[in-house]
């Protein structure tokens, strides 16, 4: 498939018809088929797909059968792009057979994950023939399936690069260098948010965010100048404020979102009552 076909050349996207399990659906030309299929309500399991990241193709659960010129092949829907007339099936006996084995492998790899158990059960897999991985010291609580979402979000979206894959093959784990607290971590918590199996443990306490899963690293939380509440990691707010244009007024910068909104609203009301208008972003020394 060329880039012209998948619409990377900047031209407006054409709408195409694709066929999912015999049902005709609309999709943008070049759109990720998994995304289109999920929108259409197709039951395709997946763990490593996230629309804002590049196709990754690691969990292999979204494999579908593609019919092309009378020949069928199995591909991951998260790396497949929509083209006119593309036909996929999500529940052939072959797909079900292999998907079930993959679920069994996941049940053995992440025996503590309720998400995995529930997902597998939805597809009829409730037990595994394979030896379960038991690791009592696992900072990810026996729930990590190495989908890579946390690593990719941390590196590609947040730009922090605090965590990464360590080792290879069956020894692969996600962690910080030397499994210690990493000063590159800004404490944004995007890793925990994106984790499909809720394996990552982060806790806010005593004015700090503690990254339990990442070597116990601590990131200071910013404290609201008005209500005194800890509202976000200091490093993250500083980085975000530094990027704002026009910049946020100094006296608003140290407030939590709720107090900030309240102060702006209060000012607006006061100004309106005085009959004038002002703008909260204009630098003003009080």
């Amino acid at each position, binding site marked *: 498939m060329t880039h012209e076909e998948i619409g990377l050349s900047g031209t407006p996207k054409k709408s195409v018809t694709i066929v999912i399990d015999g049902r005709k659906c609309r999709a943008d030309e070049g759109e990720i088929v998994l995304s289109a299929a999920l929108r259409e309500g197709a039951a395709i399991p997946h763990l490593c797909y996230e629309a804002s990241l590049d*196709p990754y193709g690691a969990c292999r659960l979204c494999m579908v059968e593609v019919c092309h010129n009378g020949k069928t092949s199995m591909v991951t829907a998260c790396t497949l792009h929509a083209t006119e007339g593309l036909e996929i099936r999500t529940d052939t006996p072959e797909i079900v057979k292999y998907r079930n084995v993959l679920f069994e492998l996941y049940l053995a790899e992440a025996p503590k994950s309720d998400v995995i158990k529930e997902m597998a059960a939805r597809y009829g897999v409730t037990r595994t023939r394979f030896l379960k991985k038991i690791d009592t010291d696992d900072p990810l609580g026996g729930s990590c399936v190495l989908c890579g979402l946390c690593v990719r979000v941390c590196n590609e979206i947040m730009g922090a690069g605090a965590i990464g894959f360590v080792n290879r093959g069956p020894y692969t784990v996600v962690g910080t260098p030397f499994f210690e607290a990493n000063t590159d971590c800004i404490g944004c918590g995007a890793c925990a948010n994106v984790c499909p199996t809720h394996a990552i443990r982060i806790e806010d306490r005593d004015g700090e965010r503690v990254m339990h899963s990442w070597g116990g690293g601590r990131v200071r939380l910013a404290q609201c100048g008005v209500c005194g509440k800890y509202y976000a990691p200091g490093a993250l707010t500083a980085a975000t404020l530094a990027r704002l244009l026009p910049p946020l007024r100094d006296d608003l910068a140290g407030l939590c979102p709720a107090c900030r909104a309240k102060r702006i609203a209060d000012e607006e009301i006061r100004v309106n009552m005085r009959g004038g208008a002002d703008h909260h972003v204009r630098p003003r020394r009080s």
Partner: protein
Amino acid sequence: MTGAAEADLPAREAAGLRKLKPDRPRIAVGLATCGAAMGGDRVYRRFQEIIGAGGDDIMLTKTGCIGYCREEPQVNITIPGRPLVILHRVDADDVEEIVTAVRAGEVPYEMALCRVPSWDHVTGTTVEYGGGFDRIPLYQDVRFFSHQKKVVLRNAGFINPEDIDEYIAVGGYAAAKTALTEMEPDAVVAEVERSGLRGRGGAGFPTGLKWRITRKAPGDEKYIICNADEGDPGAYMNRNEMESDPHMLIEGMIIGAYAIGAREGLIYLRAEYPLAIRRLELAIAQARTCGLLGERIFGTGFDFEIRIVTGAGAFVCGESTALIASIEGRTGRPHPRPPRLTDIGGGLWKKPTDLNNVETWCNVPVIIQNGGDWYARIGTEKNTGTKVFSLVGKVDRVGLVEVPLGTSLNTIVFDIGNGGSQGKKVKAVQTGGPSGGCIPVRLFDTPVDYENLNRVGSIMGSGGIVVMDEETNMVDIARYFVNFATGESCGKCVPCREGLKHTLLLLNKIMAGKGTEKDLDTLGLLADTIQKTSLCGLGQLAPNPVLTTLAYFREEYGALVKK
């Protein structure tokens, strides 16, 4: 850098011939890795002591490996007007006797493996050594050699790999000159297409077509890469090609870069091959000094540089997207294709990139020199040319074997290899490394080519042929390969990372006598799943050793499981 002087090939050719056929005896010690380790190093040092003491009446030099590894260390003797004589199994203690004989115009007959009155270097140059020594068998009468056809290994074991003059003397760089000064890039691509050459890394993709796709890809900046990460255990063809004839690889890359339109070439070379790295570094420096690399090569407008990139031990980096990631300083975890390497956005630093195996590049000079049609007449219709195999394991005559594609396993294992070592019965061969399969002896009439090896469940791979005899347990072999693949899995996708691990656990259980028939069914299902659902070739092919041993040696599994 200023443009180096235009390459003066005729002067270098003459100088090289004076070194290959000096006016005094020449003694060349085979010093590739195996030869050196088997005592060649000590033999060479002993020659230095003895000859050094007696003046400079004998020229002492090094050569690569002629491939008959069982007979190391080997020493070539060239006495003016006499045939080149290859001595075998030479010991440092033999050196004094050899020098005494050579000084008397003789060779020690009992150490002689064979004689070579003249040698055809295939590129239009035949070196005539001379006659005599009739008591010594001719090269072509030695059974290890008589079924072989040397095209890629035409210079290996004859020239000094550390001397560009000798390579030029046997027709080297003439093809590069022809290509750059007399042919349009498209004509070069067409010639490679006409030859029918297919990728020697194992997948067998038509080389000319890959070149054409990369050439046509948009953009001015393109790369060519040589995959020298010879990863299959049991395979060492590429090591010898680089150690014995490094300039052949460089010349192939110069021609390819010109045809494709690349100005930079990279050789991704595994760290386990220090001698190959040293010899290639030296060869690149020599080529640069001679104006064969750098700016305005052969006085044309074509600039080209080659850089060596050292791998760091990861089998998966043989996979093209992982190899690119590795060069760019990332872990070798494959990503889904497309984009392919040849696409914009898919290659090195997102530029269109052509990746070929060492042996593929090595085939290029002779194709340009003799023509694609000449090349296509070797081998079979869809599998042209020769292929170098490393014939190892429990075989009598261990070594590197070059035969036309389509040669049967019988010829390779029995005629060339002389069957099992110590008279034992051969049971099977394993081809293609961890991605290949085990082929039982009853299928040895299988012609060795890409399609026929696939048909019996194996693959060509890079050319390792490991022989198993009656004492080899095939379940253990399957476990060996699965253990290898598990350790080399990048860990990205679940069937490969977890599936192979559980395959290994099952095989351990079966080998320990604790397996059941049900475990065999699970093993088969797991292997099938890994093959069908893995992200890259490593995972997709890793079950082959299990699937082929289950298919051909089921009774060995059956004997191990509980009834």
